[in-house]
């Protein structure tokens, strides 16, 4: 009978490097220090993670479920977290994966990014469009777009983004993570994140323009 049959609840760690071809396993229980460190670093992030979950799921109950699931997974898999690395990014990765897995489960087919929607937004700058629409006689594009569009319009614009772009926009522009943290959370290279942000922002601006036009805030184009 092996030792791990006698002590199934113990997790073991191999020190970095080891000796020769095989490291020496040191058997240690999940120590109180690691648990304490997790509680000290992770619990203060609950509000922030809840905010991110709410932006992703747009539903308070779903957001609560996501955050509970993320913390449960993080706690159970604490041995996979490397001390000294970025716990915030690690938790965001777990949260984002939980959201993506739930989201994919609900969709039957993979989401296809509409090339047409992207192409139309490719060089779209809301500021320029509002300014040229106003002609000489108007006011400040900010007053038109930003002050008269409602929260609903902004939320709809965000919802209209393909999921890949939406995740990057939410984590970087809205939640305030760094490029590296977003890259770690989504497990894609920083270059890909920057590209998604660039395209996502333009699609958002095009969506806001469409809302402004539909709300009669800007003149219809010929």
């Amino acid at each position, binding site marked *: 009978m092996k030792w791990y049959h006698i002590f199934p609840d113990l997790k073991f760690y191999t020190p970095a490097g080891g000796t020769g071809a095989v490291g020496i396993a040191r058997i240690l229980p999940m120590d109180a220090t690691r648990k304490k460190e997790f509680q000290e670093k992770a619990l203060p992030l609950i509000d922030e993670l809840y905010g991110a979950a709410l932006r992703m799921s747009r539903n308070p109950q779903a957001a609560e479920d996501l955050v509970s699931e993320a913390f449960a997974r993080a706690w159970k898999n604490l041995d996979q977290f490397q001390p000294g690395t970025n716990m915030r990014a690690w938790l965001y990765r777990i949260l984002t994966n939980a959201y993506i897995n739930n989201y994919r489960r609900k969709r039957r087919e993979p989401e296809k990014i509409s090339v047409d929607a992207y192409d139309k937004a490719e060089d779209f700058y809301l500021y320029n469009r509002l300014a040229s629409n106003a002609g000489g006689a108007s006011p400040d594009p900010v007053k038109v777009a930003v002050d008269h569009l409602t929260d609903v319009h*902004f939320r709809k614009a965000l919802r209209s983004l393909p999921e890949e772009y939406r995740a990057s926009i939410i984590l970087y522009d809205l939640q305030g993570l760094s490029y590296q943290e977003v890259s770690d959370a989504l497990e894609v290279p920083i270059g890909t994140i920057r590209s998604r942000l660039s395209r996502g922002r333009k699609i958002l601006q095009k969506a*806001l323009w469409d809302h402004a036009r539909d709300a009669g805030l800007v003149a219809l184009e010929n």
Partner: protein
Amino acid sequence: MNEDLMGLIYELLNRRDLSPEMEGRVKEELKLRGCCKDRIEFEQRVLLRFREATSHGGCCPDRLKKKIQSLLEEF
């Protein structure tokens, strides 16, 4: 710099990934491309509106905090 104009403006608005030296270069590049202060303020306002509109109040309910605390005590 290869970033398009909006990318540069957002680098400045977010700042967290910019060293002081890079911040100076971004500002210079924006000037070279004819980007005015109004434009930067406009993009800042749009970004803030997105943050406000999607924050939904943002604070985690107390029952969730308690649930997570008990989860951590279970293992």
